[in-house]
């Protein structure tokens, strides 16, 4: 295929190793900060440490889905196949992060709220996001026709994108068990720096992991296309 330039494979392959080592270094630092150095919360005690895996997972799963929806719009507008290849390669890590956010949130809910699950607006909308990821991944497996699967997956991503602002603002729009945001870009952050730093490090580590999985998946997709190319020779 013409859109795959030769340098892409080489670049993706080389960057995998760098990203893997960076991820391992930052994750080790993040775990040390999160489990040992960071203080306990005055109200939640040590259970607040769950935040260091729960919050970055939620942020990254939302970010990846937003990116997938944007790429899906670009697929429809520009008809460029590279965009759906990128969106397809992003989906597995996005799904895992949404699952981690749900499960760790549930574990955190037990000592904090006294229940593993509540049909709360934030938690339910997060579950819907996880279902959208699952539908996206299943669609790639069950539909054979390339044109059809591109349309279906783009539709799922764009439809699922409606859910993203609902997740973000659910804690403001409805009275929920889930607490409002503590980290804000446009208003004051209500979290102390001793907790904000490990949170930032863990977010960086998780972002690097999603980048690593994306690069590996993207490389797999490139080889798949080249395999089909060999059949045509």
């Amino acid at each position, binding site marked *: 295929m013409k859109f*795959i330039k*030769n340098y892409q*494979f*080489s670049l993706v*392959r080389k960057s*995998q*190793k760098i990203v*893997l080592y960076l991820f391992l270094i930052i994750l080790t630092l993040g*775990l040390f900060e999160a*489990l*040992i150095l960071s203080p*306990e919360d005055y109200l939640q*005690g*040590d*259970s607040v*440490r*769950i935040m260091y*895996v*729960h919050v970055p*997972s939620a942020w990254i799963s939302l970010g990846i889905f937003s990116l997938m929806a944007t790429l899906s719009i670009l697929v429809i507008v520009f008809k460029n196949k590279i965009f759906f290849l990128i969106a397809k390669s992003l989906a*597995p*890590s996005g799904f*895992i992060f949404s*699952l*981690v956010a749900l*499960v*760790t949130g549930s*574990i*955190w809910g*037990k*000592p904090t709220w006294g229940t593993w699950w509540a049909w709360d607006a934030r938690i339910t909308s997060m579950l819907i996001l996880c279902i959208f990821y699952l539908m996206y991944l299943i669609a790639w497996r069950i539909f054979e026709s390339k044109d059809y699967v591109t349309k279906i997956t783009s539709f799922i991503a764009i439809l699922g994108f409606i859910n993203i602002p609902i997740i973000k603002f659910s804690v403001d729009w409805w009275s929920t068990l889930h607490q409002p945001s503590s980290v804000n870009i446009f208003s004051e952050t209500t979290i102390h720096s001793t907790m904000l730093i490990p949170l930032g490090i863990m977010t960086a580590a998780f972002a690097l*992991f999603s980048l*690593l*999985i994306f690069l*590996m*998946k993207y*490389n*797999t997709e*490139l*080889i*798949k296309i*080249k*395999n089909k190319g*060999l*059949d045509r*020779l």
Partner: protein
Amino acid sequence: MISELFFMNGYGYYVLSSFLFTLFCFLGLYIITKSQLTKEKNKFIVKFGELNSEQVKEAKKQKIYKEIIATETFSKI
């Protein structure tokens, strides 16, 4: 000190199970993605080996074919 680290004032079970679940998910996803990549590379090597000399000449005009074969030998990831 170590028992305090694991006990975490009674929250150790919740905290450590959250971290372990996350790490298992990461490890699982990494292994699956890696095995898919290896499988596709191996498929490519087999297919490339079945080409006749004319087809190999044609294929080698593209740098990416040579790179895939090279990474099969050298990549440790």
